[in-house]
């Protein structure tokens, strides 16, 4: 049900933006990867704001945008209730506000990729601790993914 709702919203969003088209933004298609490996909640919210501004400037239809999270960066997607079970993290920032921002960006096609090394190394429970992360969102190594994406022509940004 949730998936369908997400799909509908994405479609509506895409339709809405399609009217403005590429000419409006003046940007060609961009491939960008954002790197987050810090856990400061303000810095993380700032990074999400940067991404929203990026989308606003270029247009969601002109962007292939990924966020790679590893190390402390995983805090962005950690449920605050799980923090007591996660001794290797100092912050769990996926409160309602952060979750809303993440939802909004996902609806515009942003993909959040999570490092498997961190999940394993810091004993994170995929089902209970992470906000809206599925198997397909997990990459073997955050660092290797950043290198791979740059090799595929993605521009690297660390906000």
């Amino acid at each position: 049900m949730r998936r369908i709702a997400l799909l509908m919203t994405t479609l509506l969003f895409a339709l809405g933006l399609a009217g403005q088209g590429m000419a409006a933004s003046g940007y060609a298609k961009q491939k960008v990867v954002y790197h987050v490996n810090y856990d400061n909640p303000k810095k993380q919210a700032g990074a999400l704001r940067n991404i929203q501004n990026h989308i606003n400037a270029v247009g969601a239809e002109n962007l292939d945008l990924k966020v790679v999270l590893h190390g402390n960066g995983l805090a962005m997607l950690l449920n605050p209730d799980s923090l007591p079970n996660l001794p290797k993290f100092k912050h769990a920032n996926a409160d309602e506000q952060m979750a809303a921002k993440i939802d909004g960006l996902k609806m515009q096609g942003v993909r959040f990729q999570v490092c498997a090394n961190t999940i394993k190394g810091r004993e994170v429970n995929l089902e209970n601790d992470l906000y809206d992360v599925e198997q397909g969102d997990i990459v073997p190594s955050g660092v290797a993914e950043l290198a791979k994406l740059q090799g595929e022509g993605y521009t690297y940004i660390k906000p």
Partner: protein
Amino acid sequence: MRKNDELEINAYVDGELSDEDRIEMLAAMRANPELAREACELTNLKSQLQLAYANPPGIDKCSVSQRRSPWTAIAASLVMLSAGLTGGWMMGNSPATAERFVMLDAGGRGQAPATAESPETRIVFHLTTPDQTEAGELLADVEQMLQAYERDGRPLRVEIVSHGEGLDLLRTRLSQHQEKIHRLSSVFENLTFVACKNTIERVEISEGIEINILPDAEIIDSGVNHVVKRQKEGWAYIRV
């Protein structure tokens, strides 16, 4: 003279005192002429030793620059000579940094050549934070990655460029990961630690001491230039 004083005065002459300790030592020398004379004699001795051993044996970190053409080598030695002269003239101490200054060639440090089936991954990490906990996490990540690539037979080259406040990781006196850095660079030929000469010189002037860089690290002219160059050469860039 007490043993402690002697240690302290040696540390002062070697530029290894912290700012507060140095100020305290200067005050002590003003109050005690004998102490001042001792420091002066030690400084003289030190510079005489440096003159006699302008090229201390055992530091051979120029292996990466072997493939330079003779003209590049001549140009580089001229640059090094003038850097050494200017540095020596400006700071009045040994141009240790200039002596170790290298130019890293496009490929980075030794690694098996890439093949069509397994293209080489090249990553330059740009370290600018003084936080050595973060630097430690970086080292752990990098070690994991080097091991995984080696296990799978995939070619990989990694450079860690420490620049600005990130230089602390490679400073002999401040590094908290000296042993790990030594172990990693001995085990993995495809890993290079790089220190920025601009930063070293800037810190030497502002702190008024000579900066010593771990023997496992290479020294290059500009960290910023280097990471830009690497990206142009197709290396992946990751800011720590």
